[in-house]
C-alpha cells in the first residue's frame, strides 16, 4: 500500500508546494486546497484501473478462472469485482486524504458523506472500465499503450491539477467528456466548496457515465472465452 501511495503523495507535495506560490500570485488562492481533491481522484483513477486490468492476468492464471467455471452468472462476478475494486480504491484515497491533512488541507467536514459517495462512484466507474478493457486483451503487452494514451490524458485533462475556467475550447471539450473531471469537480465541491460544473451536474453526469461503464464492462466480461 505504501508503494501505491507514493505517486499521489509525491505529486501532491511536489506540485502543491512547487506551484503554490505561482498559483497564489495568479489569483487562484491556496493551491494545496485546490490540489488535494485532485490528488485523491488521481489515487482512485490509478488504483481502480489497475484493479480492473488485473483481470487480464487473473482470468487465465489466477483465481478468476475458478469463478468463471462456477455456477455463478458473469454479471455477478463482474459486479463483485467492481464493488471490491472500488472499495479498495476508496480506502487508498482516504489514506491520501489523511496525509493531505498533515500538509495543510482544511476541508469542509460537513459534506463528508457526499465526498465518500463521489469517491465510490468514481472508483466504480474506473474499475468497470479497467475490467472492460481487460476483457478484450490477452496479455499485458498493451498495458503501456493504455497507460500513456488513456490513463494519463484522462488524468491530466480532468481539472485535477488546474482549474477548468478560461481554458482553450479544445481542452475544455476534452475535459467535459472525461469522467474524471466530474469526479474531481464533485470532490472539490464537497470538500472545499468550489465546483466548476456544479455539484448536481457532477453527480448526475458521473452516475450516468458509471452506469454506462458498468454495463459495458459486464457485457464484455460476459463474452470472455478463456
Amino acid at each position, binding site marked *: 500500500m505504501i508503494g501505491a501511495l507514493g505517486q499521489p503523495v509525491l505529486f501532491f507535495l511536489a506540485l502543491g508546494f512547487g506551484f503554490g506560490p505561482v498559483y497564489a500570485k495568479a489569483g487562484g488562492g491556496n493551491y494545496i486546497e485546490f490540489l488535494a481533491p485532485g490528488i485523491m481522484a488521481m489515487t482512485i483513477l490509478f488504483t481502480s484501473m489497475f484493479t480492473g486490468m488485473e483481470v487480464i492476468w487473473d482470468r487465465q*492464471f489466477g483465481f478468476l*478462472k475458478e469463478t468463471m467455471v462456477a*455456477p455463478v452468472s458473469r454479471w455477478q462476478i463482474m459486479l463483485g469485482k467492481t464493488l471490491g475494486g472500488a472499495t479498495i480504491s476508496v480506502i487508498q484515497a482516504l489514506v491520501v486524504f489523511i496525509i493531505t491533512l498533515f500538509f495543510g488541507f482544511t476541508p469542509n467536514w460537513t459534506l463528508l458523506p457526499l465526498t465518500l459517495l463521489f469517491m465510490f462512484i468514481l472508483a466504480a466507474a474506473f474499475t468497470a472500465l479497467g475490467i472492460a478493457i481487460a476483457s478484450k486483451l490477452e496479455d*499485458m503487452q498493451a498495458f503501456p499503450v493504455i497507460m500513456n494514451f488513456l490513463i494519463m490524458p484522462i488524468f491530466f485533462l480532468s481539472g485535477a491539477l488546474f482549474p477548468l475556467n478560461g481554458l482553450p475550447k479544445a481542452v475544455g471539450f476534452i475535459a467535459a467528456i472525461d469522467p474524471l473531471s466530474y469526479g474531481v469537480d464533485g470532490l472539490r465541491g464537497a470538500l472545499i466548496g468550489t465546483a466548476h460544473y456544479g455539484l448536481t451536474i457532477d453527480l448526475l453526469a458521473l452516475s450516468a457515465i458509471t452506469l454506462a461503464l458498468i454495463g459495458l464492462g459486464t457485457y464484455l466480461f460476459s463474452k470472455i472465452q478463456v
Partner: protein
Amino acid sequence: MEDNIIEIKNLVKKFKDFTAVDDISFNVKHGEIFAFLGPNGAGKTTTIRMLTTLLDPTQGDITVNGFKTTKDKSGARKSFGIVFQDPSLDNELTAFENLEFHGIMYDVPKKVRRERIDQLLKFVGLEDRRNDFVKNFSGGMKRRLEIARGLIHHPKILFLDEPTIGLDPQTRNHLWEYIKKLNKEEDMTVFLTTHYMEEAESIANTIAIIDLGKIIAKGTSEELKKQTKQESLEKAFLELTGKQIREEIGTARDRARFQGRMWGNR
C-alpha cells in the same frame, strides 16, 4: 448398467482459419477414469475448455451429466469440479477461506459445507494448514488443496488438467492414490489430461488419443498396445502420433505464463 456421463457429438472448434478440434465424438462412462492424451497443440486443452463451459463450440454438442453445455451452463457446472493446469487459488486467503468461498459459490449449505471442508482437508492431508495463507504453500500442497476444493460440492465428475505436472514423485504417487480412492469410494468419474504415460497406464480405464484435432485411438491401455504391437503405452503413443516434434505457435497464453514464472507466480 453403465451409462454415459459425458457425451461428445461431432464437436468442432475453429479459431479464425485454424481448426483446433475437427469433428470429434466420444463418450465417457459413468464411474470410469478417462485419460485424454495427445501431443502439444493437438486440441486437448481446447476440448477440456469446451467440456467445462469456458469456451463455446463452433459446432457439435456436449452433454455433461445430462446437461447440454451450451444450453444449461449452470447445471453442467454444478456437475463437475476442475483442477486447472495453472493455479487458481486466491493466495491472499487461507486454505479454509478458499474452500469456504468455493462452497458458497456452489450453494453448499453451511453445515454441510463446514463438514466437507473438514473431511476434505483431512483427505488431502492439509488439516493442520487450515488457517495458513495459500501463498506460503508449496506447489504440491496447492495442487492438493485445489483437488479438495474441486470436491466440496460433491460433483459427479472431476476434471484434472495435467494434475501432476511439476510435482515430485512422492506427491504424484499420493495424488494417484487419492484419485483412485475417490473413483472407487465415491463412484466419481475422473477425466484427466496428461503427458505422463505411466500415469495414464497406471490409473486410467479408458484412454483416448487426440492429434491434430481428431481422435486417432481409443481403448484400454492393453488394447492400444495390442493395436500398435508395442510393449509400452509410450511406444504405442509415439507409434500413433509420430516421432516428429510438433510445431507450435507461441500464443499470448504462453507468453503470459512465462512472464508469470519470471515474476514469481502469485
